[in-house]
């Protein structure tokens, strides 16, 4: 990371305070607190089942933690549905791909522009000037994004027919299209080869660099995590065992134990 960033890391934008989430008797997250700073890339790592995805689902409003609170820019996100949280400026991708399979790549990305389109259905039905101009403007934005992600060749293909790696890219595109301030990326590079991972990293860094989007990403590839993130949170059995810069986390004994599988006491 270079020192002269266009968007230097600022104060906390997203804060989780003492959150606990359980499903019946299973505790997914226990009393966890951490903060995401503005314009940073924060990685959440941990073994399988550590509660990483649950954490993102809590931030995004799909789950609501039984205890504790999450606040975004000082506002509490409690019992708010995902669409309202999206309006506040948090967007995401999903671990197991949640694309609109029967829609084309362009249409998928256009759905990401949802919050930038506010003509109602009558204005659209009658193609009033407002509906037409906003549609044209947003289509242009999406075309730019398609060029940025270098996926022009598959623009009109239904995403269900694309290979996995490309689908992951389209999903990133859809999340980027929202122009949200915070992006939650749930394993954006899972199942990719080295080449594809490198490309994905380039996109993530470029977006963070050029428009200053704050990113929270879950990733298993340690090389990637250490390379691109500004700070790392380590979860194990639903608890945060380390939170700090990549170097600090790497040398943390608890983290090493968690990854090497030392017995818990």
């Amino acid at each position, binding site marked *: 990371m270079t020192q002269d960033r266009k968007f230097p890391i600022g104060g906390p934008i997203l804060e989780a305070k003492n959150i606990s989430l359980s499903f019946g008797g299973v505790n997914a997250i226990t009393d966890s607190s951490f903060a995401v700073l503005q314009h940073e890339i924060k990685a959440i790592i941990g073994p399988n089942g550590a509660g990483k995805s649950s954490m993102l689902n809590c931030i995004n409003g799909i789950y609501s933690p039984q205890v504790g609170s999450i606040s975004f820019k000082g506002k509490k996100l409690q019992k708010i549905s995902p669409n309202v949280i999206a309006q506040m400026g948090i967007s*995401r991708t*999903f671990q197991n791909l949640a694309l609109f399979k029967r829609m084309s790549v362009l*249409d998928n990305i256009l759905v990401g522009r*949802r919050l930038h389109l506010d003509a109602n259905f009558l204005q659209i039905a009658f193609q009033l000037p407002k509906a037409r101009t906003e549609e044209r403007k947003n289509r242009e934005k999406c075309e730019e994004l398609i060029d940025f992600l270098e996926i022009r060749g598959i623009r009109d293909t239904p995403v269900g027919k694309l290979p996995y790696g490309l689908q992951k890219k389209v999903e990133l595109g859809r999340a980027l299209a929202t122009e949200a301030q915070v992006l939650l990326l749930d394993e954006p590079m899972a199942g990719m080869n080295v080449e594809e991972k490198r490309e994905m990293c380039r996109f993530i860094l470029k977006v963070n660099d050029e428009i200053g989007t704050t990113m929270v990403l879950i990733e298993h590839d340690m090389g990637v995590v250490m390379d691109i993130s500004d700070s790392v949170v380590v979860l194990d059995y639903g608890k945060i065992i380390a939170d700090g810069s990549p170097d600090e986390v790497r040398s943390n004994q608890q983290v090493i134990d968690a990854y090497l599988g030392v017995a818990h006491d």
Partner: protein
Amino acid sequence: MTTKASILGYGKTDITNFVIMMVIAFAFVPMVVQTDYWYSSILIPWLCLSLAAIGQQIVMGFAGQLALGAAGFMAAGAFACFNFILRVPDIPFFVALILSGLVAAAFGVLFGLPSLRVRGIYLMVATLASQFFIVWMIDKFGWFKNYDTSGIITAQDIVIFGKPFTSPLEMYLVIVVVVTVLTILAINMARGSTGRNWMAVRDMDIAAESMGISLLRTKLQAFAISAFYCGVAGALFAFTYLKSLEPVAFDIKLSFKILFMVILGGLGTINGAFIGAAFILLFPVLLNSVGNNVFHGAIDATIISSIEQVVFGVLIIVFMIYEPLGMARLWDNIKRRSRKAN
């Protein structure tokens, strides 16, 4: 990008196709088709049911909500139109038509509420309520039928600007105008962000919500617009095809017919609604004429109607397995192949 020369975002081929279709509908058909039978038994019911099928298409093909109750909304529209014309003096026919669509849309919102909690086959069962409730309500409260005891009420004449439209050809023209306008509006919605929101909810609701789409609003909107189309279709169906108003005409069989139109025609396409409606309506006619002309009545009429049921059943299964996008997709493939051959 696409061609710059366009009207309302439609490309050159779209406009050419539209002009050709309009010439056929307004000039060619009235000139060539002279028998009333073709208007009153084929073209009029086809266009009315196509409109209802567009309604079904919106809620099921686009928004992905398995709803079964189109005929209930058609009944609501038909009786609303009857009452508006009966009770509001000098109400223009088109105003009554739009208002009846709105009445049906209100029912659509009401019966769309279960979609917020249940989905799939369970939703289908829940939406059956609209079918039974609306027809029951019309039967139960005499006011809707103007306290007519005969059970069958003759529909009023369609009068537009003082001119009655009563001959089959005249009624056909009225319907073509309404269907053309509503079809264009439906296509605009389907191509715009309204349609994208519906399809997003259909394909992956959690992701749609995370992109800022309100599931509540989008689903209820789809139900309302769908019911609007069904309501207008029902009013036209009663006033031009049945020429009478009777709740039993809007039974569950009609709902199923409209459902089959959408499935066979192709889910998620507007032209699928027209193709499906044409097939469901014309196939029995074709079968009958084959029975009469080829076998000279050697096959019993009841057997023919059973064959019809069997063929529909088989076709629906075949389409569900091999071509879920229906006849509209088959048609597209044929077009593409012929273009390649040229």
